């Protein structure tokens, strides 16, 4: 019963009044951020990271706050999907397909409650899955050497673009842009500057927080200027929120199935929550068949993607914590948090810092219950927040982002970089080039290069060192590294073939 002992340790850390307060605060902020159109979990966590660090929170408190925001944003995404037909974040896209028709049929309240409960089921099961699977995976990860890690990073980059992007070349280009940015600064092996163009400000490299805030938060304001804030929620009203017990009971199997599928979609490196909600919706739609009425506003169509995407959010934490490879954009941002806190995710994390891991897991469990309470009886509060006009909200978000970065680094140069990344983010998103691989590249670039160089040192410069990773047994091939490399190649090319058969469903129009 090792897990129970560990969990007891986690709760002993997470159940202090201070961390509980942070969890509640994080859930509240997260749900708002998730609900606001255009701001998703990545933005929410990105904006809050610099502020959290400037406040000088310790590792556990910072993690509790930021993961609560993460889970909260995953819950909140559904609110604007259902009420406005605008996904609050990318994974919530599938929720619009049945959520908005339900709202148009006058069942907005029911849809919000059903999706809230589905989110709870998905997230809770995924957190339990995380507790069971992560320690096992961390044992496998102990066998990883530099060759295996390099292959794993390659796999993450190859699959990250996969389903969520429409063009493999663009997804790969995004990864390259990130990796190229990561190389700027001092070379960790030789200590000599690289690619800085002689600019002293660049000797320390480009901080990924700067890139995250620019790409995710500041680029958003340009989109709002373009749309003149038309996607606002003024005038949306919901009357009475009752709990539709019958609908919840009738979707019980949908929620369970979707949670399992979503969790495994999340565990796959690079796949993440968008894939989770997409696959679960498609699965339930084909199970229900034509009679199921998917797309016309049925409870199952709301429950499936919400359970799926929240389960995937939990699942994505598994590779992030055990291998240091995030499974989605937001876990990439959370990885940035860990790195900034001087915590190196990976197999040793579970033995070196059990307080962090199990404190985090306990915090996730607590956050789930807090979120259920917030999102079912208090859902009206968030609907009110949605009505803040973007002309007030977006300048506020921008200023908070700037101040966060400024109080962390105190450098005007970093603020200029934030603006630069904001413009880059706007262009990339306009051209349908995903921005998450850029972040991942900046975040993992150094590690990826280091692992490659270490592998080559071990093999004396032979490229076979990527597969024959054990210098002591030169004739034994490493199955892990080979498997990962094959998976990377398949993961990169499979979507090109599959795209002909599976097309991403577009938003329903009125």
């Amino acid at each position, binding site marked *: 019963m090792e897990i129970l002992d560990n969990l007891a340790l986690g709760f002993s850390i997470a159940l202090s009044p201070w961390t509980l307060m942070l969890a509640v605060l994080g859930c509240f902020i997260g749900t708002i951020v998730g609900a606001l159109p255009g701001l998703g979990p990545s933005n929410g966590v990105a904006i809050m990271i610099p*502020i959290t660090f*400037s*406040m000088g929170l310790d590792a556990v408190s910072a993690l509790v706050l930021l993961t609560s925001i993460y889970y909260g944003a995953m819950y909140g995404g559904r609110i604007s999907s259902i009420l406005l037909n605008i996904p609050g974040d990318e994974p919530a896209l599938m929720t619009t397909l049945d959520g908005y028709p339900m709202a148009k049929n006058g069942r907005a309240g029911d849809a919000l409650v059903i999706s809230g409960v589905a989110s709870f089921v998905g997230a809770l099961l995924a957190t339990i899955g995380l507790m069971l699977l992560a320690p096992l995976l961390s044992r496998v990860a102990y066998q990883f050497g530099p060759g295996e890690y390099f292959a794993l990073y390659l796999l993450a980059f190859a699959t990250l673009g996969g389903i969520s992007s*429409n*063009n493999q*070349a*663009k997804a*790969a*280009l995004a990864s*390259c*842009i990130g*990796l*190229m940015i990561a*190389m700027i600064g001092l*070379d960790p*092996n*030789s*200590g*000599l500057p*690289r*690619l800085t*163009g002689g600019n002293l400000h660049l000797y320390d490299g480009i901080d990924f927080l700067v890139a995250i805030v620019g790409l995710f938060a*500041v680029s958003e*304001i*340009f989109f709002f*200027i*373009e749309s*003149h*804030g038309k996607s606002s929620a003024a005038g949306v009203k919901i009357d009475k929120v009752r709990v539709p017990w019958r609908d919840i009971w009738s979707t019980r199997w949908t929620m369970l199935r979707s949670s399992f599928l979503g969790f495994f979609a999340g565990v796959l490196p690079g796949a993440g929550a968008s894939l989770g909600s997409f696959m679960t919706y498609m699965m339930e739609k084909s199970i229900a068949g034509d009679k199921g009425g998917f797309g016309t506003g049925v409870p199952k169509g709301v429950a499936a993607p919400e359970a799926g995407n929240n389960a995937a959010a939990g699942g994505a934490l598994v590779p992030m914590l055990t291998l240091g490879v995030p499974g989605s954009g937001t876990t990439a941002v959370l990885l940035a948090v860990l790195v900034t806190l001087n915590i190196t995710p990976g197999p040793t994390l579970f033995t070196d810092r059990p307080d962090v891991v199990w404190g985090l897991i306990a915090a996730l469990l607590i956050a789930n219950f807090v979120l259920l309470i917030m999102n079912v009886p208090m859902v009206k509060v968030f609907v009110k927040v949605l009505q803040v*006009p*973007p*002309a*007030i909200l*977006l*300048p*506020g978000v*921008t*200023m*908070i982002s*700037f*101040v966060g970065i*400024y*109080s962390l680094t105190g450098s*005007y140069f970093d*603020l*200029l970089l934030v*603006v630069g990344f*904001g*413009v880059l983010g706007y262009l990339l998103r*306009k*051209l*349908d080039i995903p921005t998450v691989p850029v972040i991942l590249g900046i975040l993992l670039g150094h590690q*990826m*290069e280091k692992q*490659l*160089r270490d592998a*080559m*040192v071990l093999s*004396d*410069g032979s490229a076979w060192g990527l597969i024959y990773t054990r210098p002591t047994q030169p004739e034994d091939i490493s199955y892990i590294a080979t498997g990962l490399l094959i998976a990377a190649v398949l993961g990169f090319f499979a979507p090109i073939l599959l795209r002909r058969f599976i097309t991403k469903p577009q938003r329903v129009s009125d």
Partner: protein
Amino acid sequence: MGRLSDRIFGLAMICVALVYIASAMQVQVSFLSDPVGSKAFPIGVASVAIICCVVMILRPDEEPDWPVMWTVVSIIISVFLLVGYSYALKPLGFLIPTAIVSGALSYQINPKPIRAVLTGLGLSIGLFVLFRYVLDLGLVPFGKGWF
């Protein structure tokens, strides 16, 4: 020749990647180097980027909906505002630049002058109180030696 956006971006990125490779070639190498060295990885990544760009140029996607001229102008104005803000924050303190920039951004999103002014003032003072007194961040309200 339709679908210019992808092609132009691809071409621009090829130029960036070539400059990047050229400057990676110049990287000083220390005498104690590993088999890979400091140059190989950046050059490799930039080469992959060039391949991706070539694919983008040969097989571009549909043209995105670019905003109309006036919107482009307001986006450019906001970029300059934010650049100005980056330079102004230290010498002028938090309150005045924040009020001006957030008011102006608000006006760009929704051109209602009175609301924009109120947004600027409200955000500047509200955020200052929040950051300084609730979150305890070291922000300076005004420039040095004004009062």
